[in-house]
């Protein structure tokens, strides 16, 4: 008969019931306000500028708002997040190098 060993898993216990995340629900780009949270990594500001230009000229985005963090490895300030959340229909952030 094979011996058995009981252990407790070292991972975070998760409650079996939980709420799901919100679905992505943007139905169009025209007339929308798009925000950018620039992570300050090299080249990301150029990507932001280029995407913003395309969204404005080709997809009818009404307004673009840009915020740039001081550094990639710090969280954005709460006031910035609140402003983007209040003013924008879509916010685009960046991750990676």
């Amino acid at each position, binding site marked *: 008969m094979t011996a058995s060993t009981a*252990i*407790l898993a070292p*991972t975070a216990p998760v409650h079996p019931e939980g709420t799901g995340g919100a*679905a992505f629900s943007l139905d169009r780009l025209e007339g929308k306000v798009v925000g950018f949270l620039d992570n300050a990594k090299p080249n990301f500001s*150029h990507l932001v500028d280029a995407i913003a230009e395309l969204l404005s000229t080709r997809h009818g985005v009404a307004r673009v708002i840009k915020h740039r963090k001081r*550094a990639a490895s710090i969280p954005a300030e709460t006031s910035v997040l609140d402003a983007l959340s209040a003013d924008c229909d879509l916010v685009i952030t960046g991750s*990676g190098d």
Partner: protein
Amino acid sequence: MTVCSSAFESLGRAQAKALGQPNLPILRIAHPFGNRSRTEVETMARECVDQLATLVAKGNPQEASGQASAQAAHAAASRCERIEIAGDVDAVNRLFRRRRWSDGLPVVAPTPERVERMLQGVLRAPQSVIASVAPAFGAATLEAIAVNAVASGCEPEYLPLLIAAVQAVAEPQFNLQAIQATTNSVAVWVIVNGPAAQQLEVNAGMNCLGQGTWANATIGRALRLILQNIGGAVAGEMDRATHGQPGKYSFCCAENEIDSPWESLHVERGFARSQSTVTVVGAEGTMNMNTHTKDADQLLRVFAETMQHPPSNEYTHGGEPWLILCPEHANVLQHAGLSKADVKQELWERSRMPARRMADRDLLRVLESRKDELGPIGPDTLLPIAQRPEGIGLIVAGGPGTHSVYVPCFGNSLAVTQEIT
């Protein structure tokens, strides 16, 4: 939505899931991105916009998933999962290896009996949540901490210290989120002060950063396993370290309060000498400073010149570098009439580095990160390593010898000191 360079897409998805947004759209671009030409960036921008337009055109009816949000998990954490394994301790280690729950070394099987023994002496419910651990924001329940403590080989009397360490790393100023998911080599260094250091036999003397002391080895190891197994920072997944470092196996010592000529770290930070504390530091690594000089001025000079290094997060952000002075070097400085604060002032002034020593792209990061602090920055600007002299951390540790240690740190993280209760 977020733009991810391909090498970081898995991190983006894992992070989105951890934050309760498993359906967050990700716009994928090629990696590496930072070295692309302007023309290439514009091409990538068009690709991003095409991806976005496709998402919008499809209507993207992504249903909310049944995944638990971080907040829900935190608020309603339950008991650790019990797993029955066919086999003995070898089978346990095979499971840990398969599930990536280990640090690469064999573990002590966290049986329910061992975990219960670990929990004795801590008068809290096992499912009580000590902290939420980034970047997965897993709930570090007392029981889950104890499981990792057992697996690491900790003695039960180490558990209050570990609890304090988990509380400390979860403090916002420590910036655990960044430390866990970065490409940087940063490890979490645990410094123990007060009576607990001797009571738990945490080594503050010879080879205190090396192998051989049970408390140093297992406490540091347990914290790393907690950061990995509860915090989700599995190497190559949410942990994106380019190399990592040996300190990510274990990095723990006590301060040598007996041989230090100054007040201890925890007294310096406002605690009573009779209190016991842990201090957590985001440490990039260690660099030995072997100098036989008995002259305080020369000692400070060579230390300061060691601290100056162009590819440095400290100089980029105005960080919090640390030094471990051996008792001999500390006494040279103290005998010259220098207090700990004086040493920090001297090192801060002497370690200022001309901005021109940094690579061009790195200097751009400095301009971005420190313009509010320093004003206009040019090639001849002398960059201070920390924003203030007080930002340099300093302890006395180690045994006999003429070696001190420079510990460069993550830059955008501040050490946290937590009482052990």
